[in-house]
């Protein structure tokens, strides 16, 4: 809502010294979000005067038509001689009154005017357009042509009210009444403690049966309908400058007098109005719901198919307006057009004014359904003062008569469905209890009265809320009114004392630990958008039927290429990896932890639960069943050097082993030992892919994968060679956790070390050999470490040698050499039995 300060002052006697910025501060404090204060005409200095065009000489030979004019500016130029001015506009004729800026003046934007030579003539000033004067759109697309009665030589800065300040207020949905000067003025009056001149306090004649016939068939959708008629309007009458200027400053374009006036009164009182050309109305006006398939062409020229919930205004032909949203083209007010032959001006002479009140919800739905938000619908959605309808109609009638010379017809149609004002009962101490401040009853009552409420009672206040505040429905709404007017800035600062808390949950601690552990291992965290498309799954080689193909899809994605939510963290991480690589960073280790979205396919549409009670546990369970599973995953990607080469020696490239180790790092933080198995899964290299297995409740579960990416994937995505990746389901890892760690017992007896080298088939996994060794070695085994892997001629084709260091120790004695050897032999025997291992000679 744009509020010109000069207009606001019409209703509140703000101190003359108050600037727009001062008013802004006051209004912000009472809760109006004044976003900007625009200073109109800032930097503008005259002379800027009214002139009359005396002669026009068309200059030839230029790329565009140019006129050399003489203009009478009275004594404004000091000589009284006609002013010679070159002008490029064409929308004026000899005798027209125009706005002339004379040399020495400065226009907005520090545009200094001086006499200068142009198009072979000397131009002493300029004939101005609205744009050049910072007036906004006047719809003429050329210079300003003033009404003929304007006095030559007079000051145009004052005439056009060029210097002003405009407050731009973002009106919150609860403050519909502030979509009007009346509402903003009420807030300003309260903020300054000044009286308000309420423009809606008008004498309105009582309704009678002589008015234009109206039939309201849906009194719930339309609780009030006022119709007034003005006849005998002069179709040539134009909106006076003051009217045009106020509309322009408020951000609206002047159109024609009747339309401008309905807009003006809407801005003033907040009541949307509609003017019908009576000559085009056929029969009585009706208000009803549309029937299925009915159509209307609205004023914006769009043909719309109506829904049975849409409220429409009708005449005998059918719908002539989308009630409270936009009028129909078929009853549009015609602008005065002069007949080329007779010179007679034809246009609308009789208008019917509609001031109605429509149901907020119905208008909101219609506006949304037709994607048509208008000044009227914005106001109805947020609540319009139903009591202001007849005053608004009266105000429009008065102005029409004043400005277009018509006659107000005596008929006054008013259809009102009975409704009582809303009354609330609150303890007088309620605002105090909400605020934590002792305002006292007297203050509470005074503030509520300032808002417009009627207040009765002592300890219990009976509060009747004003018709323009449909938002005041609950006790806390009234508390807010008191607290905001007393000043949020005056609230004290106290601290509540919560009960002792339990700190973070195990799960929250785990998430933090995993992040730190991965960062500690050299990975840099990336937070990627969770959007993806089928294309990247194709590139990753993920086959149809894979669970990662079943996605949550958005109705309105930002990009049509990425309408789905991620089922894996890897595409996002690879995108970040590629971006870094493209920007010249080639040694990369990235990680992310976050939710992925895995529909089960059994999701039902979410039920709409009530809000007047807590839903039952069953209802909540049903609602939650509409949501996909959203487990938290952790993932890494890496490429380039994991360890840099340098003066210390060689570096080490990032490999599948680093990726697998990242999985172990994550699991270790959860206190879970991962079993790693060879696997094959897209997008990994079929020979370099590990599956992570954990045991949850006695059952084995695959919780993640790691390894080098498939060469085809690397090619398809344009990734660096040998890029590696790991992804693991943190929730399942957490589920496998086994409670607090039990401390190991430390023996201080000497260690007995035994090394063994075992030859096995190349296909035997090291993990299997290790498991066998451990089982065979028994309790005396303290630790086991694979320190070498060798394959070559010495061990034979298709074989490999695995060298282990075994450390034996007993809790209660020094082991003898025989005991250690026996344990080692048992370990080797177990490896031989389970993996075919042969002790290397």
């Amino acid at each position, binding site marked *: 809502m744009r509020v010109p300060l000069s207009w606001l002052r019409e209703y509140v006697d703000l101190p003359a010294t108050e600037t727009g910025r001062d008013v802004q501060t006051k209004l912000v404090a009472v809760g109006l979000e004044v976003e900007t204060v625009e200073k109109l005409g800032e930097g503008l200095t005259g002379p800027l005067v009214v002139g009359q065009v005396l002669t026009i000489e068309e200059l030839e030979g230029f790329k565009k038509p140019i006129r050399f004019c003489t203009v009478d500016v009275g004594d404004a130029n000091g000589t009284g001689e006609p002013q010679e001015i070159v002008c490029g506009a064409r929308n004026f004729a000899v005798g027209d009154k125009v706005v002339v800026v004379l040399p020495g003046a400065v226009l907005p934007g520090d545009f200094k005017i001086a006499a200068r030579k142009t198009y072979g003539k000397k131009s002493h000033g300029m004939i101005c357009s609205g744009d050049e004067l910072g007036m906004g759109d006047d719809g003429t697309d050329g210079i300003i042509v003033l009404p003929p009665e304007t006095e030559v030589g007079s000051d145009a800065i004052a005439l056009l009210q060029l210097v002003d300040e405009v407050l731009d207020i973002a009106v919150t949905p609860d403050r519909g009444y502030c979509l009007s000067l009346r509402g903003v003025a009420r807030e300003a009056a309260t903020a300054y403690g000044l009286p308000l001149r309420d423009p809606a306090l008008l004498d309105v004649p009582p309704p009678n049966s002589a008015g234009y016939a109206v039939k309201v068939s849906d009194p719930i959708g339309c609780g009030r309908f006022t119709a007034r008629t003005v006849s005998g309007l002069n179709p040539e009458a134009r909106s006076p400058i003051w009217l045009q200027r106020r509309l322009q400053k408020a951000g609206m374009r002047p159109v024609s007098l009747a339309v401008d006036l309905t807009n003006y009164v809407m801005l003033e009182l907040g009541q949307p109005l509609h003017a019908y050309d009576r000559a085009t109305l056929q029969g009585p006006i009706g208000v009803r719901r549309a029937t299925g398939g009915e159509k209307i062409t609205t004023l914006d020229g769009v043909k719309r198919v109506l829904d049975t919930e849409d409220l429409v205004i009708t005449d005998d032909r059918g719908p002539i307006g989308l009630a409270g949203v936009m009028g129909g083209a078929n009853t549009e007010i015609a602008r005065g057009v002069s007949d080329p032959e007779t010179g007679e001006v034809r246009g609308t002479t009789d208008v019917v004014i509609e001031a109605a009140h429509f149901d907020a919800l119905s208008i909101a739905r219609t506006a949304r359904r037709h994607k048509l938000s208008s000044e009227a619908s914005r106001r109805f959605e947020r609540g319009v003062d139903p009591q202001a309808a007849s005053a608004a109609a009266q105000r429009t009638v008065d102005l029409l008569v004043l400005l277009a010379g018509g006659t107000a017809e005596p008929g006054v149609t008013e259809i009102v469905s009975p409704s009582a004002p809303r009354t609330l009962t609150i303890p007088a101490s309620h605002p105090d209890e909400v605020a934590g401040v002792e305002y006292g009853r007297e203050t509470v009552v005074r503030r509520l009265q300032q808002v417009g409420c009627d207040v009765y009672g002592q300890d219990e206040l009976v509060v009747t809320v004003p018709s323009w505040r449909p938002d005041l429905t609950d006790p*806390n709404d009234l508390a807010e009114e008191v607290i905001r007017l007393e000043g949020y800035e005056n609230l004290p600062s106290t601290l509540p004392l*919560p009960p002792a808390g339990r700190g973070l949950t195990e799960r929250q601690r785990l998430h933090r630990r995993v992040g730190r552990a991965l960062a500690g291992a050299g990975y840099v965290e990336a937070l990627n*958008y969770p959007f993806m498309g089928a294309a990247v799954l194709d590139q990753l080689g993920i086959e149809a039927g894979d669970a990662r193909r079943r996605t*949550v899809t958005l*109705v309105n994605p930002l990009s049509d290429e990425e309408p789905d939510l991620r089922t894996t963290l890897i595409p996002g991480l690879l995108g970040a990896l590629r971006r870094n690589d493209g920007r010249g960073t080639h040694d990369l280790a990235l990680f992310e932890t976050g939710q992925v979205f895995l529909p089960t*396919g059994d999701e039902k*549409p*979410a039920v709409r639960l009530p809000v007047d009670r807590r839903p039952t546990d069953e209802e909540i369970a049903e609602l939650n069943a509409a949501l996909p599973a959203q487990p938290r995953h952790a993932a890494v990607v890496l490429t380039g050097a994991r360890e840099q080469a340098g003066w210390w020696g060689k570096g080490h490239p990032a490999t599948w082993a680093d990726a697998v180790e990242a999985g172990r790092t994550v699991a270790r933080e959860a206190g879970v030992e991962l079993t790693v198995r060879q696997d094959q899964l897209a997008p990994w290299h079929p020979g370099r892919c590990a599956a992570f297995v954990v045991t949850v409740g006695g059952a084995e579960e695959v919780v993640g994968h790691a390894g080098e990416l498939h060469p085809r994937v690397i090619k398809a995505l344009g990734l660096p060679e040998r890029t590696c990746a790991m992804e693991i389901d943190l929730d399942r890892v957490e589920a496998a956790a086994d409670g607090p760690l039990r401390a190991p017992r430390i023996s201080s007896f000497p260690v007995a070390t035994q090394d063994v080298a075992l030859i096995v088939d190349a296909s035997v996994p090291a993990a299997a050999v290790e498991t066998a060794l451990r089982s065979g070695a028994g309790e005396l085994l303290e630790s086991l470490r694979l320190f070498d892997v060798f394959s070559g001629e010495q061990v034979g084709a298709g074989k490999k040698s695995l060298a282990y260091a075994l450390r034996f120790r007993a809790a209660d004695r020094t082991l003898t050499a025989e005991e250690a050897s026996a344990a080692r032999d048992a370990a080797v025997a177990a490896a031989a039995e389970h993996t075919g291992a042969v002790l290397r000679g």
Partner: protein
Amino acid sequence: MSAPNKSYDPVEVEALKPEEIARRTDEALAAVAAAADLEALREVKAAHAGDRSPLALANREIGALPPHAKADAGKRVGQARGRVNQAFKARQEELEAERDARVLVEEAVDVTLPFDRTPAGARHPLASFMERVADVFVAMGYEVAEGPEVEAEWFNFDALNFVPDHPARQMQDTFFVQGEGTKGDESGVVLRTHTSPVQARTLVDREPPVYVVCPGRVYRTDELDATHSPVFHQIELLAVDEGLTMADLKGTLDHMVQALFGPDMTTRLRPNYFPFTEPSAEMDMVCYVCRGASVGNPDRPCRTCSSEGWIELGGCGMVNPRVLTACGVDPEKYSGFAFGFGIDRMLMFRHNVEDMRDMFEGDVRFTRPFGMEI
């Protein structure tokens, strides 16, 4: 060996003569002093203090002396050998110290060499900042609550008093999820537009008193640019207890900005509208960068607060009793306050981040300097 010679005069045994011992001793001491290195000293030791050295040989002669002479000669030889050994030891230590000093010099390195063998990793500043903000409240006794990002409209809107078709529902540009067998936005499932649904989930799940914060990721249909992102982060606070007031809200906000930004920070509340709070307020804090010095001072403009002196942090207010009702909490008995604000913007001005995009592109050059915690 010959028979004892009673008339034998020990003085006459050449090697045990005092002059001879003194001469041998002096020779040994001179040789020790002359030894230039440990190798030479080892040779000197063999020659002058070894088993075949003159003093050792002299020592052997003592046994042949008559008893009365033995003590005298023994003392003489013992003292000589002691002096020589002492000198050896001293010289040995001296030479070892010299050798050690020389080796340490030889082993000196250039400690200014860079060592970027394994580059450090880092947490994302948004992640670590959310933890930091949460910790401020955990320290006060609050707990951290979480909820799903794909959320039911009932939790995201209805339970929070966003009635269907309420204009406020359109204020937030919502991503809608396609439902099986439904068209358009009818699935009743959305990407949560704020962290506030966690409020509703918490109230439905727990009995008051409830004191929780909910950090997390939220979604709105904004294109990514320097100041907007379709995916961003909020932290939500909810306190529901008996007798909570707006003054408590104000105090909690003050505490938070002081804990995060310094002891002289203050907040300001401005009336505003949110469906789920009533009364509602917009919360500002003093500009972290200019501390208000830029207001009305065109010579010192502040880009962080646009010379307003205040930075908008987010919305807050007293929990609307309708929300309590929808979540099964008795509004006659309990009241509460709540706030929610954007972590991303807060991080931007706390760390002078100029462009929102830097936080979402995953460029390691941006993230790495933030380290483990901020």
